[in-house]
Structures are given as C-alpha cells and as structure tokens.
C-alpha cells in the first residue's frame, strides 16, 4: 500500500497525532468475485456512504469491536469487468480493505481489495508529496555539496501539520504565558479565524506566525469578538519552547513587591 505518509521530524513528532486523527482519502482497486450490474453497484456504493458499522479486520492494530465510522464519499472512477477503481474519502480509522470486503458481501458476490493508495491525510495531499529517493538525493546534495534549496523545499515548517485547523493569533505576552501552560484569555488575542465553534481544536500562533500551542475553544468566534475578558481557549498541547518570548506577566509574589 503506498501513498501519502507525512513524517514529522524531531520536535514536530508530538504534533503528528493531529494528522493521524484527521480525515483520509484513498484510491482503491476492488476485485469483485463476479460481475454485477452497474445499478446494483451504485446502490451498494450509496449504502456504504455516510455512517457505517465496521468491525476491524483480523490484521489490525485496534480492538476488534464493531465501530461506527463515517464514509464521506465513494466515487467509482472506472469499471472493467469485475474490477472497480474507486476513490473513498472517510473518517480516520476506516479500514478500506474491510469496506470493500463488506461491500462484496452486500453485493452477494464477494470482493477483496487488490490495491490501495492514500491520496490525502488531513492537509497533506498526493500532489505535494515527495518520494523517498527524491528526499535521499536532496539530503545528499545538502550534506555533500552544501546545496540547501532542494531539501528546503521538501521540509515544511511544523505549522503545516496543523494547517487545516482554525487559527488564533496572540500577542507576544500571551505567547509566553501559554508556553507555561496558561489558558488563553480574550485580552491576549489579536486575530481569530471565522467559524470557530465551542469545542473545536485550534492552532494558536504568534503574530510572526509561529505555532505556540494547540487549544480547545471555550468560546466561538462571535463570543471572542463580543467579550473583553474570560478564558476563550483551553491549552491542550504546548509546542513552543519556553523563553522564546519574554514573560509579559508576573507571579503574585513579584507583583506585590
């Protein structure tokens, strides 16, 4: 199975879980065990779109209990006899091999997956991906000949890992407080993206664009704009190291002196 596999380096490693838990898109080749009429196939495709029940396959890395997964779209790209090429976009954790097997059961003829290629995971798409040998060449050019350009174009800043999330830009002082685990209050906010709902995970960034932390929204965009105080975002994961921005706040004991 080939396709998009974003690899986070060193300090970015702790962020990659965000991508693991985001939606995926695949192109899969299904082998039906007998030909079926087009209408029948289309009917089953519709049936397997939306919320589906799925028991993970024998060879899987999760507990084999019935789970509900969402399939956003299945598009049949090509058909040739009993071979069906399709594009599937789905929630993370949906097993395509099992999806095809189950579709085969419902079709009544049986089916299995012959090929699978992941074309998108979270914000990372196939058209932007680099191959192993391209990366290896770029590393060689950099290490042996000091040429940075190729490798530089392949290593994206870790902010790209959370590029699909809503964003909140904060003042320097707030950035510092967040690195010590503080939650983000309204006065520290400079800019918010539209459409944030309570409970959404957001990327908190500085006014230079550096990622500070991931946070959970306690206020919607409208509420942030309407309020002058209060905790707007609860810090979930601190990414920036301490000391990058100066402390804009004092301890109680210091303030009293």
């Amino acid at each position, binding site marked *: *199975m*080939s396709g*998009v*596999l*974003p*690899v*986070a*380096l*060193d*300090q*970015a*490693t702790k962020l990659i879980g965000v*991508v*693991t838990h985001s939606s995926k898109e695949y192109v899969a080749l299904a*082998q039906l065990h007998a030909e079926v009429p087009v209408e029948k196939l289309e009917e089953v495709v519709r049936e397997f779109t939306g919320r589906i029940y799925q028991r993970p396959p024998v060879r899987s*890395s999760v507990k084999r209990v019935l789970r509900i997964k969402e399939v956003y779209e299945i598009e049949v790209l090509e058909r040739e006899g009993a071979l069906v090429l399709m594009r599937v976009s789905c929630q*993370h954790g949906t097993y395509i*091999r099992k999806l095809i097997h189950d579709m085969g059961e419902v079709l009544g003829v049986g089916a*299995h997956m012959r*090929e*699978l290629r*992941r074309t998108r*995971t979270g*914000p*990372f*798409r196939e058209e932007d*991906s*680099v*191959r*192993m040998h391209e*990366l*290896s060449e770029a590393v060689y050019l950099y290490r042996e000949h000091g040429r940075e350009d190729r490798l*530089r174009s392949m*290593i*994206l800043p870790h*902010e*790209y*890992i959370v*590029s*699909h999330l*809503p*964003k909140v*830009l904060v*003042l*320097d002082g707030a950035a510092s407080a967040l690195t010590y685990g503080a939650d983000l209050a*309204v006065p520290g906010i*400079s*800019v918010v*993206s*539209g459409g944030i709902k309570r409970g959404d995970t957001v990327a908190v*960034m500085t*006014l*230079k*664009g*550096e990622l500070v932390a991931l946070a959970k929204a306690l206020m919607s*965009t409208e509420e*942030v704009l309407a309020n002058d105080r209060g905790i707007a975002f609860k810090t979930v994961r601190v990414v920036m190291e301490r000391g*990058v*921005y*100066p402390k804009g706040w004092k301890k109680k004991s210091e303030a009293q002196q």
Partner: protein
Amino acid sequence: MEEAIRFAAELDRFAGVRREYLVKREGLTDPGYGKPPRTRTLEELIRCGVVNLDKPPGPTSHEVVSWVKDMLGVSKAGHGGTLEPYRGGDTPRCPESCPWL
C-alpha cells in the same frame, strides 16, 4: 500582524480551506524575539519540520520513518497514520508448505 495573517492564509491554501481573519485587537510583535517560520534555517527546519512523503508499497510505515530518521540524523520522528505494507489479493502469499519463498 499582517505577516502572520498572510502566513496563516498560506497554511489554509495548503490545506485546501478558506478562512476569514477577524481582528480583535491590533497588535505588534517585538522583532527581537522569535522568528517567522519562513526565515528558519534548514537545520532549524530539520529539528521541527515535516516531510510529506510518498510511501512506497513494500516497507512498513515504521521502517520508512526509521530510514528518514537516519537520513536526516534526527533522534525522533513520527508518521501520520499507518499504511499497511503488504499488497492485497493478487500478491502470491506463501502457503505454509513453502515458507522459504
């Protein structure tokens, strides 16, 4: 502030989403601290970056990560979602009688 909004919009474009940005409070950032992501050195990028890799079908996701780690000389790396290594169906699988194949 404008610089950060531009970078945020660049990230949105990469992810294929469109977002509007609403200013709550005009803000300035001290150029003496931190640095815009696009001005990081290559060594800095290697320490906190991500490679959008096209995994070949043979190896496991774990093996691929391990190679990338060695290649770039980093001590940690992680991937975004396992892609199983083996090819399905049409790949001949060895019956128990000939495990040496």
